[in-house]
């Protein structure tokens, strides 16, 4: 199986993407992507948290305010959470947060909640590649910084 590699477009502007990855599944999955020598765009900055349940909507809101163009929150697949129900909590939290995004005029596409297990390195790379592509289409979060 081959992963469709992300093709960099000609553009002066580069999106900044923040990715929260949980320690037990997603970060291990990204680690596997590294050891398997899979390539993914450099636009993503990964922050490791012990559980996706640690990620608060306040953090995501602040990230947008500080100039991040998109946020990925990757968690264990449903049922696999190391802390039993941390990822379900994340799903509920960010379902509420999505409601707020509409009110604040933030595009829904700028946030992605995804389950990535420790063995899904290819999925991780695919998700990041697709997400960064989408950010290129959406443009900068702060228009005047274009």
């Amino acid at each position, binding site marked *: 199986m081959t992963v469709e590699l992300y093709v960099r477009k000609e553009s002066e502007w580069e999106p900044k993407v923040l990715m929260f990855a949980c320690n037990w599944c997603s970060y291990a999955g990204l680690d596997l992507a590294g050891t398997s020598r899979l390539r993914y765009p450099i636009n993503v900055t990964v922050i490791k948290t012990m559980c996706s349940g640690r990620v608060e909507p306040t953090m995501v*809101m602040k990230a947008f305010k500080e100039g991040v163009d998109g946020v990925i929150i990757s968690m264990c697949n449903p049922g696999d959470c190391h802390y039993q129900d941390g990822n379900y909590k994340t799903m*509920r939290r960010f379902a509420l947060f999505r*409601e707020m995004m509409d009110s604040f005029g933030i595009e829904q596409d700028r946030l992605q909640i995804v389950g990535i297990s420790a063995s899904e390195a290819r999925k991780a790379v695919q998700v990041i590649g697709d997400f960064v592509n989408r950010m290129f289409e959406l443009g900068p979060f702060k228009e005047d910084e274009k």
Partner: protein
Amino acid sequence: MKPKVGFYWMGTCGGCEESVVDLAERILDVVAAVDIIFWPVAMDFKLEDVEAMADGSIAVAIINGSVKTSHDEYVAKMLRKKAGLVIAYGSCAHLGGIPGLANFHSIDAIFDRVYKEVPTVYNDKGIVPQLRTEIDGMILELPTINNTVQKLDDIVSVDYYIPGCAPNPDLLMAGIQAILSGNLPPVGSVLSPNRNMCDSCPKERKEEKIMVKEFKRYYEIIPDEDQCLLEQGLMCLGPVTRIGCGELCMKANMPCRGCYGPTDQIEDMGTKYASALATIWYETNEEDIDRIVRSIPNFASIAYMFSLPASIMKRKRIKSEVDFK
């Protein structure tokens, strides 16, 4: 000579002024200790009188209301120069308050709605207020209205905050006494205890783990008087709100609306509330989560009812910020 105190209102409903009057007979003690030199709602002093005073000659300026027009901005800055201490009084000055919810819309949308679209408005010529109008050779001028509602400390530096919609008169009295005795907390403090509403709520939490099946609005149920309102499915902002009000809403069997603002540890009230609210229901598949979230109308306005201009984003995003103040 008694210290001078000035009161001023900006974008507000007048409830804060009412709460000053609610000091009742204690207002006599206040007047015995200080001179009120400016209070548009109750006394006949003109703005020119204050403008003529020397800088720093007023001891305390107690300002309520949010900043929405150029006139508000002008008076706030002027009073800051004249006053030794500026106190932001009430939710609107402290956090932006309910007028701050205007930040979820653009100014054009608000004008269209208010002057053209409301069903009871008859305005077939589409007349909207103008900054400058000439009638019979006379010129009428109105202050400009800003696109974004701001709280007081976005405009001037504020020394102390008295929260609440409207503030508890006891807090004002305690504040005035603290100023008179010189026994003041660090500058920038909110003059209300930094504790959480659930801490002092008179209602009882009956369940070990709160399990809400669906969220309800105030008018849909008559809640049990003794039980936690969150347990009964009402969206109470108690978990993110500071105490000081005397738990008035809960005593009247109404959920907390968050007018006292967040505790010092909370940066953004609305997102923190989303965080807290997600832990009291236990749906685990996406369809059920969606169903529950959809059952909450306009969640952002509930979570930010009093604090939108004090939130991280401050307002709805505007694509082009060039022609926007």
